[in-house]
């Protein structure tokens, strides 16, 4: 979509894919060593295989019972197994069957984005950030050895920020209603989850942070608070529907001073 070179030989690129826009902040070298192109190509491949909106995707064919997992790309079985583990870990609040139909999108975006970031690391980049529509994986630090600064959107004020998180080699994932309405279902009731306006999880890996944010959002504020507190290596920050906030005991060390 847009590509902008900036100071200290860096490059920003925004790629429409997976129903959103994935933004890259990478060293300029990622354009010439082919790793940016490989990462973008990987995301489009994931979209073709995993999109529930494409009738010919492996996921759509599998959901329709037209093929078995054996006939799909091997990554489909990998995702299925991971979703099953997360379902157990989250007391059933994370599911690859929201609304009863096979749709692993809640896992795939974070997983695909973390792997896209790994492709950049594999090519030698020690400093990059990939933001898949609001879920962020970053590697190393930004130019100047400062941590990456990731703003947490204020769900009640478009364009505003609730706070800013500092991240090195880490992920920031947020689930919420601000952009697509109440679309996250509580799998135990089948109804849209209520009580939270947004929930952010910070951790080392976007795959887990994104899945944890989705599960915790579905839990609602009370259960989510206890559950996220119990997660190792992850911290959470929540904004409730009435505008209140809470955070897990270790979240404060991630907050950037204003």
């Amino acid at each position, binding site marked *: 979509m*847009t590509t*902008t070179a*900036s100071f200290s030989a860096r490059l*920003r*690129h*925004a790629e*429409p894919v997976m*129903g*959103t*826009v994935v*933004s890259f*902040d990478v060293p300029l070298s990622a354009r010439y060593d082919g790793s940016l192109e490989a990462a973008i190509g990987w995301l489009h491949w994931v979209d073709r295989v995993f999109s529930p909106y494409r009738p010919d995707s492996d996921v759509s064919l599998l959901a329709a019972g037209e093929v078995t997992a054996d006939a799909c790309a091997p990554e489909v079985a990998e995702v299925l197994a991971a979703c099953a583990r997360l379902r157990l870990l989250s007391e059933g609040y994370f599911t690859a069957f929201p609304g009863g139909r096979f749709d692993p999108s809640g896992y795939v*975006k974070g997983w695909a984005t973390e792997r896209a970031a790994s492709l950049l690391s594999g090519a030698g980049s020690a400093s990059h*950030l990939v*933001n*898949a*529509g*609001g*879920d*962020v994986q*970053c590697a190393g630090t*930004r130019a100047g050895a400062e941590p*990456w*600064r*990731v*703003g*947490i*959107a204020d*769900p009640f*004020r*478009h*364009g*505003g*920020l609730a706070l*800013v*998180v500092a991240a090195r080699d880490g992920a*920031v*994932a*947020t*689930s*919420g*209603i*601000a*952009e*697509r309405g109440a679309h996250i279902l509580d799998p135990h009731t089948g109804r849209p989850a209520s009580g939270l306006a*947004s929930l*952010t999880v910070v951790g080392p890996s976007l795959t887990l942070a994104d899945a944890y944010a989705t599960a915790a959002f579905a839990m609602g504020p009370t259960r989510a608070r206890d559950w996220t507190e119990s997660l190792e290596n992850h911290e959470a920050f929540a904004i409730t529907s009435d505008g209140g906030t809470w955070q897990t005991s270790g979240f404060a060390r991630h907050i950037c001073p*204003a």
Partner: protein
Amino acid sequence: MRRVILTVTATVAGLVALLSFKTHSSDPERTVASPTTQPTLQPGERAVTGNVANTIYGPVQVRVLVKSHKIVKVNILEQPQSTNMDVQIGQYAFPRLISETLTSQSARIDAVSGATYTSGGYINSLQSALDNGA
């Protein structure tokens, strides 16, 4: 320049969102001439005039004074004034948004985490402003 454009974007987004609450007749064909009056600049200050944002309530245009990469003043050059509601909004909301703009500039950021936007929602997002070198 990043945070300056970012906060201008946020301000305009806030104004447009605010003005979208009430129905109102408008004249989309109307264009606003650039103001002929120039601000008096202190040493080191620069005036940046934003594009006219045509909301369904009428055109909105702001001008900011920038000094050392910070917004030091915001002027509303054009705002809807044809009804009492417009005037009330102007009296209440514009000073508040200007104040937020002036106080929120420490938020230098590299990315925004939030509920997943659609491709369409991206266009008006802060992340889009960052990607465009703001």
